[in-house]
């Protein structure tokens, strides 16, 4: 897993920005769900998008998993696609917390809502720190039967060049809910982000 494109300082800056965004998102989520969210430092890595399917194959190979994708667009060329992946049993845990009762809404709707909340609160936190603002497209669900994750990911990510893999583990009190978030960004956006990071670093 390389940090292609980012130097040490930029990487550190990006990690810090993401940590803070995670903190903001977790707090919002915790208040909304009326529970405590244990924060773990998300690990981030910049990888070539073609490597993504293999990376997740292992984790999701034998389970029923789902994938929700949502596009985001901001100023200064910051744009991409955010993908949230989870195991279905995890999704059921958080839906109970969101106040859904069994049979209340369709599974797809529940997944869409959760993903949208996780994605947009996190990305908004990110945008705030880089003095940007983002708009979002409606989330799309691509759930998968067992073992299908790899081909789903291939179809989704093949036309993006780079992927920023942010490994998030939300742990809710008394439950453990885990999901992976991947931010897929096109080549030009990486350059734009680097520029923004440099600008932030210059201030210090």
């Amino acid at each position, binding site marked *: 897993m390389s940090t292609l494109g980012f130097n040490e300082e930029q990487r550190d800056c990006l990690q810090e920005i993401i940590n803070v965004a995670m903190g903001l998102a977790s707090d*919002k*989520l915790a*208040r*909304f769900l009326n529970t405590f969210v244990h924060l773990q430092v998300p690990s981030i890595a910049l990888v070539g998008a073609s490597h993504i399917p293999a990376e997740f194959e292992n984790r999701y190979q034998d389970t029923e998993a789902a994938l929700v994708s949502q596009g985001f667009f901001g100023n200064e060329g910051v744009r991409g696609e955010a993908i949230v992946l989870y195991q279905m049993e995890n999704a059921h845990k958080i839906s109970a917390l969101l*106040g859904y009762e069994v049979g*209340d*809404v*369709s599974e*797809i*709707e529940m997944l*869409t*809502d959760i993903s*949208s*909340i996780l994605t*947009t*609160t996190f990305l*908004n936190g990110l945008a705030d720190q880089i003095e940007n603002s983002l*708009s*979002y497209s*409606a*989330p799309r669900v691509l759930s998968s039967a067992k073992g299908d994750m790899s081909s789903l990911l291939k179809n989704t990510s093949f036309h993006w060049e780079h992927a920023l893999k942010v490994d998030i583990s939300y742990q809710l009190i008394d439950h453990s809910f885990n999901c992976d978030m991947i931010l897929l960004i096109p080549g030009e956006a990486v350059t734009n982000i680097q520029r923004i990071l440099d600008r932030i670093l210059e201030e210090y």
Partner: protein
Amino acid sequence: MSHTWLNSPILSQLNSGVIVIDDEYQIHYLNAFIERHASMQLSDVKGKSLFSVFADLPEAWLKRKLMSVLDLNTPAFSSWEQRQYIFKLPHLRPITSSSQYMAQNCSMLPLVSEQTEQPLICILIEDATDAFVYQQHLSKTLIELEKANRQDGLTKVLNRRYWEEQLKQEIHRAQRYHHPLSLILFDLDKFKDLNDKYGHLGGDFVLIQLASFIGSLLRDSDLFGRYGGEEFGIILPDTGLDGAVEVSERICQAVADYPMLFNQQTIRVSISMGVSELLPKQHLLHDDLIRCADMALYNAKRAGRNRVCSYLAGETEYQKKVN
């Protein structure tokens, strides 16, 4: 409650609905699209609750979604694929489905009013009816395609491939739950002669008629398929040998008594039937069960046709034809 920033000509021309409400669900604004489609005037509904102005909104669900927008300051979405519409608005395009309401994609966006810092929500409604109708057509086509994949084109019973798949599954199920399972194989007696006498059209006609007739004698759970040209199979779940033989004899008799009218000629046919029950120890593959039923069918032919024969336990070879 006056928002001059909402008087933009763009909003009045926009081909999507815009509704602005506050954190108590009171309407601050709706654009011309909504006024026209919902037959209302902004001046009449301003300040009223969204739920009193629009009939039949999914209140609990919508409130929860709107609250999340305010609490988290993030957008929420609803697609027509999950919920066909939120607001019951008629549309003007004719559609083949039973619905007369506009299919909608809705976005709920957080706003801050410039004057009062009061949190507002903008509900954006996009007409997705075209996509909805297209999807319905597509679904119908796919269902028909799938049916075609399973059906025998001529007789409309299950085609061989699908029928054999089902047989495998039924065997598996019967073994798993220790239920009995029986198989009937039958074919038309002297079908070649029939074809020679009435032509292939006559032959086809008979197959179609017979398949339909026999199908009507079966239970919903029985699986009726075309195994060969004039050969058919029936899978009888939860049925032991005695039951299967009884059913077969009834069918055999009914077929013999069934007159079919073709080109003003009356055609009668008879069938020979072989029956076998699943013996889990002996029948390890579905082929084994078929072979046993086939042996029984062969015996029925040899014994004079127009009859039912059941597989004799222990029989392993086709009996040689007695001259």
